[in-house]
Structure formats: C-alpha cells, structure tokens
C-alpha cells in the first residue's frame, strides 16, 4: 500500500513528465513554417476523438477544428444506433445471445465428455474426436472480438472513429476479462450490444445493460450469487468502480445489501438464456441501500438500485473525472470536471451532452493539456495511418504488440480497467518496442504523406533525409506520433 508520500511522488513525477512533454513537436507554427494553430488542434481532435487523422478527417478538422469536433459527437451517436458493419468472418460475435450461450454450453458439455473419456495417456487422449479442439469456439470468439476492435479503431469505413473511442472508454470503465473462461465467448457480444449502442446514450441504460450481460455476470461472479450463498463481488465493484467510487460514503453494509438486492440476477446456460432473473434464488427480505428502503419487489429492486446509483452526484463526479483524464489530461483541470459533472446531473447522465460540454471546453484545446498515447492509442493510430487492416497479418502483429506492451485486448484481469496515463505507459524500453512495431508495419504500407503537415519542423527535416521505406517507419516511431 503506497503511503501518501509515494502517491505524491508519483503525481509529482507525472506532472513533471507532462510539462516537459511539450517539446517542439505539434507546436503551432506561423504561416511561414507550415502547421497553423488549426493544424495542431486538428491533430488533437482527430487523435483524441478517434485515434489518428485520415486524409479526409485531417482536411475537415483543419478547416474548423471546433465545429468538426461537435459534429463527430452527432455522427458517432447516429452510428451507434446502426448495426455494426461486421465482416462476414466475424459475424458470429454478434449472433443472437441465446445462440452464443447454447454454443458455449455445448462446448462445455463436449469438454466434460472428453474428460470422462480421458485416458492417463496423453497420446490416446489426443486421438479422441474433438480433442485439442474442445475450446476452439470460445477461443475463436475472443479472437474475433479482438480483431473487430482493431478494425473498428483504424478504419472510418468500418466504424465511426469517435464511436470506437467511446467504446474503448466504456469497455474499460465496465471492464471484463477475456482470460476468464466463462467470459471469453461473450466479450464480442458485450462490446457490440452493451457498450457500442449505449456509448453515447444514457449512462444508466449502459450500466443496466452491462449488469444483465453474461460477460459481466460471469466476470464478477454475480451469476453465482444467491440468497443462501451471497457473493458480494459485483455489488462491491458496481459501487466502487462503476458508479460512486471509493470513499464516497457507502459502507460494507451497503455492499451487502446491494448484493442481496441483486440475488437472482444470473445466467441460464442450460436453457440458452444470457440473462435471467431467478425468483427462486432471490432474497425476499427487506433491504436498505444507502438509507433507502427496498421492499421485496423481485427484479425491480435491482433495476431501481442500479438507476439510483447511476444518478448520484458521486457517480457524476467519477464519470466526469474519468472522461476528462481520458480525453484531456492525466490530471484533469478541476473546473472542467465540475462542468462535466454538472452536465451529467442536469441531463440524467446523457453522455452525448457531457461530450458536447467536453469538446466545447477551452481545456480540451489548451496546448498545455498533453496526453501520451497508450499502447492501444499507438497501435490504432499506426494502423489508421496504414489505411486500416488490410490482411490478417496486421491483426496478428498488432495484437502481439499490444500483449507484449502490457495492454492485451480485452485482457485486463481486474475490474478497474487499464490505466491511461503517461506514468503507466511512458516506460523506457517500451518506447523502443514501439519503434520495432512501427518499422514492421511500415514495410507493407504506403507512405502517409498527409501526416507530414502535423510533424514539427525538426522531425520532418530529419525524416526527409532518409529514403522512402525508412521514412514511413520513422514517422510512426517519431516523438510527434507518440502524443495525441
């Protein structure tokens, strides 16, 4: 446990790091030198409200960065209400939930049979039908989900860039871990049906959708909790991470009461139900959550409690802080957090309205509010510069890079999600491995000449001294490209 001193030291280090991040790169230049103030703003807007500029968005954003940014919110919302453009080979992750549940159940049954037939001799086992392939379904589902995220974050013809960004943000806020066997086949469906459609909707709808999805029900053990064997895991994280935040006034007794309220919220694998309220497992007694009495009303108790938690000022503050850290600065300006929080409360958690406040804020555009790219940012922005995913190899390489960099796709074990600050990701040897990845990708892509305008004078001059193949790699590996 860090003492106050270590935490302060960490903060001090982060702040020191950020102030000195402001090297020549991305500095707005005068007309004589090329990049204008609009160019720097366009880099910021396209890199944060998406992952990187494309030739088209580079032009549109430079023409009027602030108006462009506001338009993105409406475009992303509209996209969120449309069916995702899944390539046929990934379509399975968006199959009806009950089909996925049934396939998963069948996979588990097959594995059980395999175990019963199991022989102590590994070679005999390998000869059994289906051996070694027992978990192919789950594995394919997880790989397809990860592939979708990469295609979505790097190609505006596949997915709206801000919608891909908001999907990343909310997935991370309501994190599930694809390494847990029961979660694995459901991750893609969770992304597409819980996170994506609500990413610019109302927070409480998003929260409720996550509470009723097998990915979350399994991940935080809610599926196993019942009146006789209470599991507090989900109830605790629902308050500590998804809504109120630690130190916001709730007590251990509240955790327990919320867990009692949610008893019966489970998954029925056998009958192919992704979510089911099992009356039989529900605690029918009276409960008191944060001073509010809950008379026995079955499933309605849980719905009410979740919406109630979603509307609390502490929740508004927590979401506002996380959004501002994600989009503006590692240590977000308190005045901005206040304004976001107010919008959240005034609109009953309308995420679109909060985002409008955010991109209209001077803090969003202030040059001092720097952000360093996470591995995910770097990977998606490099792929965007390459024109999106062209072949399977790019997916395999990029997922490999993310895993090696410590940010594997859907691979964070704990419910707090990945950190997104420079203190976590600005690690010396990690930067050299970004250069490896950049050079590897550069071998198979056209030179993204449209990015030149965004590079600082010294960077551009240095890169211009090299021949074409190396130029592309250096562009992606340059310090300018590490910031957003």
């Amino acid at each position, binding site marked *: *446990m*860090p*003492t106050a001193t*270590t*935490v302060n*030291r*960490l903060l001090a*280090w982060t702040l*020191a790091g950020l102030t*000195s*991040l*402001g*090297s*020549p790169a991305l500095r707005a230049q005068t007309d004589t030198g090329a990049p204008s103030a609009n160019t720097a703003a366009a880099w910021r807007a396209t890199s944060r409200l998406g992952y990187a500029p494309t030739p088209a968005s580079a032009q549109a954003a430079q023409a009027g960065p602030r108006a462009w940014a506001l338009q993105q919110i409406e475009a992303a919302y509209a996209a969120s209400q449309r069916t995702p453009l899944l390539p046929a080979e990934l379509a399975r992750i968006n199959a009806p939930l009950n089909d996925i549940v049934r396939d998963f159940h069948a996979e588990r049954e097959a594995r059980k049979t395999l175990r019963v037939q*199991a*022989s*102590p*001799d*590994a070679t005999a086992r390998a000869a059994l039908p289906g051996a070694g392939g027992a978990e192919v379904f789950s594995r394919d589902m997880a790989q397809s989900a990860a592939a979708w995220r990469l295609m979505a974050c790097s190609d505006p013809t596949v997915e709206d860039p801000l919608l891909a960004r908001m999907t990343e943000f909310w997935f991370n806020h309501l994190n599930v*871990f694809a*390494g*847990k066997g029961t979660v694995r086949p459901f991750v893609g469906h969770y992304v597409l049906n819980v996170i994506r459609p609500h990413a610019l909707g109302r927070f409480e709808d998003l929260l409720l959708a996550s509470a009723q999805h097998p990915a979350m029900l399994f991940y935080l053990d809610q599926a196993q909790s019942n009146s006789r064997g209470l599991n507090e895991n989900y109830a*605790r*994280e629902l308050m*500590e991470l998804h809504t109120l935040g*630690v*130190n916001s006034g*709730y*007590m*251990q007794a*509240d*955790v327990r009461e919320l867990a009692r309220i949610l008893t019966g919220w489970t998954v029925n694998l056998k009958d192919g139900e992704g979510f089911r309220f099992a009356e039989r497992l529900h605690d029918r007694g009276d409960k008191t959550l944060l001073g509010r009495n809950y008379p026995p009303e079955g499933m309605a108790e849980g719905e009410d409690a979740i919406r109630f938690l979603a509307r609390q000022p502490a929740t508004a503050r927590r979401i506002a802080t996380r959004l501002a850290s994600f989009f503006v600065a590692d240590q977000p300006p308190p005045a901005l957090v206040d304004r976001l929080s107010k919008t959240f409360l005034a609109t009953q958690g309308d995420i679109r309205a909060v985002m409008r406040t955010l991109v209209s804020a001077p803090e969003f555009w202030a040059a001092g509010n720097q952000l*360093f790219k996470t591995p995910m940012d770097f990977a998606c922005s490099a792929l965007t510069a390459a024109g999106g995913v062209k072949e399977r190899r790019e997916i395999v390489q990029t997922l490999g890079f993310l*895993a090696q960099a*410590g*940010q594997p796709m859907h691979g964070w*074990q*704990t*419910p*707090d999600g990945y*950190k997104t600050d420079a203190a976590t990701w*600005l*690690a*010396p*040897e*990690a*930067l*050299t*491995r970004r*250069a490896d990845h950049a*050079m590897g990708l550069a071998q198979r892509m056209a030179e993204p000449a449209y990015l030149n305008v965004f590079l600082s004078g010294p960077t551009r001059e*240095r*890169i211009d*001294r*090299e021949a074409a193949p*190396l130029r592309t*790699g*250096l562009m992606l*590996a340059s*310090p300018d490209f590490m910031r957003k």
Partner: protein
Amino acid sequence: MHPDLFSPRRRSLLQMGALSALPWGSGAWAQALAPGKTPLDGGRLVVVMLRGACDGLSALVPYADRDYYALRPNIAIAAPDGSAQTALRLDNTFALHPALGPLLPMWQQGVLGFVPAAGLPAPNRSHFDAQYQMEIAQPGRTSSAPGWLNQVAGLRAGARGPAAALGVGEANPAILGGPASVKLIPRGQAAERTGVLANDKTRQALLDLYAGDDSLSQAFRQGAGSRMQSAQELSSEKTAADVRRKAMAGDMPMAARQLDRDGTPAGAQAQSAQMLAASNGAPDPVGLQLDAQHLGTLMRNDRGLRLGFLSAGGWDTHANQGAATGQLANNLGNLARGVAQLRRDFSEPGDVIVVMSEFGRTTAENGTRGTDHGFGNAMWLIGNRVNGGRWYGQWTGLAHGNLNEGRDLPAHHDYRAVLAQLLRSTFALSDAQLSAALPGVNWDRRLDGLLAKT
C-alpha cells in the same frame, strides 16, 4: 485508484482484526541497517511465480501419508524405493518428484527448505484474483495497488532512481507494478534482440529524433541504451557459451565426438565432455532455464539490480496430469532446470530464491485424473541464508478431518509471513518497511529459524 485507508473494504478488515495491530514488535528479531549501506545491499532475491496453481502434492510428495495414496489412486507419485520412477526421499515425511532431481543436491547441501502448507489467509479459487492478491500482498483486494516487489524496489532508490528490480518474461506483472522504476525484458530469445536498433542507420535516425531534453526523448534514449546493453550482454554470454562448447568438441578426437544411434556419446571422454558442457549451461537452454540465465547475467552485470522476477505457466492440470511422467512431470522438469540455473547464478551469501504458486490443488484426484483448485501449497526457498535440508511450519497430513472444507490442504501459514521472514533476513527491512510491502501481515514465529538472521 490508490488504496484508501478509509475505504469500506479497509474498514471491514479492521473490524475483523486483521490489521488490528502492527505486525510484530516484541517477538521478532528486529534488525537495523548497517551504517554506510544502501537499502537492499544485504542480498538479492529472485521470485519464481508458478501461474495456474502448481500441484504441490506432486512436487513435495507426502509419501509416508497413507491418505495421499488413497486420495490419488492414479496420479500419486510412488514412494521412494531408489528406482527411477519413484519419488526422491528427503526425510521421513516428504520426498521430491523424480523430475525435481536437480533440486536434491540443494537439499543435501542444506540450502533448500520448504514451508509445505502456506497460502492466502482465506481460500480464493479464482486464478486471477489469487495471483493478483498474492502479487500486491493484499488478500481480498481486487482494485489497483502496487506490487510488493515494486514496494521493496522503491526502498533502494525511490521512484526515480535506477531500477532495483528486473522482470523477465511479462510485460508488466502486477508484482512489479508501482511507482519505483523497474527493468523488464521479454521472455526467451527476444531479450537477446535489439530489434530495429540493430540497424545503425535506423538507430541513428531514431536517436536524432529523440535528441531533445523533454522527458519523452530522455526516456527513449535511456530505453535504447538499456535495451542495447541487455541484448548485447545476453547475446555475448550466449556466444561465449557456444565458443566454450565448440572448443571442447574441437579438442576431442573424432571418434569420441560421435554419438551412438540412440544419441548417447560413444566414448567415456565424450561423456565427460558432455557433462562438463552441461555444467556450464552450454546446451542451448530453453524455456525457464533461458529466462533464468538471462536474469542471472543481467543481475551479475548490474549490481544495482537486487530483485528478480520470473514466471512459469501451464500448471492448471485439471485432467491427465500424469504421475512420475506426463504433462506435470515435464513441467516440473523444466522448472527444476530453471531453478538449478538460478542457483548457479545466485549462490552468493545473501542470495535467496523463492518459488510460489497462487494456491494448491485438491488433495484428491478428480474424475479426469487431474486435480481441481485447492488452497494450501508448498513454498520453496533456496539460498545460503536458508537453513535448508528441512522443512518449516505446520503440517497436519491429509486425513479428511484435517483438510480445508474436507478437500484441500489447509494454508497453515500466510504466504506473506514467509516473505516477511525472507525480507527481514535478506534485506534487514524494518517493521515499518515490512508493513508497507506486506500490508497487514503478522510475524509468524513458527517460521523462525527458516532463514539465518542478518
């Protein structure tokens, strides 16, 4: 996301009394850092984490316990009788799995000791929760916290000093996460590669791009230097080993170099040469042994590195785990070679190696000749400071009434209490430092004597 003393979870722990008192005070042998010494000068610690729950009852076999054989009709390791497929006797209670043969000399030399029944304070059957909690040394916590090895590393140089800890294999293991800077290199041969930095033209261009005074440029240059150096040290070590091996082969007459059809050396001279080569670690090491060798080389070259971390997976043997041979035996063999390599590189007076896993496996075999998630497990300690050749702590056998929930080995000792003994002995940490690294741990006097006092 940092732990808060007044969070509900913390309060509930306080109510339970788990943190009711500062850990030890009166009973424990307190130490003071010798004047003129930098923290962690006293020794070096290597942690080997077996991810996936290693079956401790196959590694450290309670062969004298009849229940062991009754519970595991198909997968028990046969009691030692001196033949190849049976366990290797340690004392009247325990024997080693035959694949752990490389550890037997360490036991005989008195540098290997066990705590046979240790673990988390309460059962947690989720691999990832249990591993995470073991790495942050805060049982029950699921939210973000720094790793305990990072906390210890921070004692040496604070958050901004040179790295005192080296991790091999994982991108950012929780045990090393936190404010102190640590050095991380990838698993296997990737650590020997400089990637694009190997190309002079590319390297120079990158260094020019990152020539500035800003923190990003500084970090890049530091990383490039560190990576070039690591890769160079590791690959030159490898080249030296190759040269030694070739020289040895070259000195031999042709006939002696030839192998029989089954691969055994034709002559006695070749055989001794082969053994000599093996003792140099010359046969191309793979898996954990290679990672161990990398760890040893880098920590030998940089004396500021005092803490090492390695991990090995593949222990989740729910089906067909095998017995004297089979998948678990293969994995144990790989582990034994890795640990033997570590012992070669970490045999200075203050060096200690600890091997641990997130929990043990069920005492009984399941319907698929494997084992399921259990609770208590053995911890292994190796080093000159270890009063080895014996085991420590409570052991109550496998009789049904003595098991946790009637199925698992109990964890008689908090794993953090074992670590506390280790950190006190190796680095002379104060009570306050131990409390910071291992929050809420109590000093367990039943383990006194496991390690030599500083």
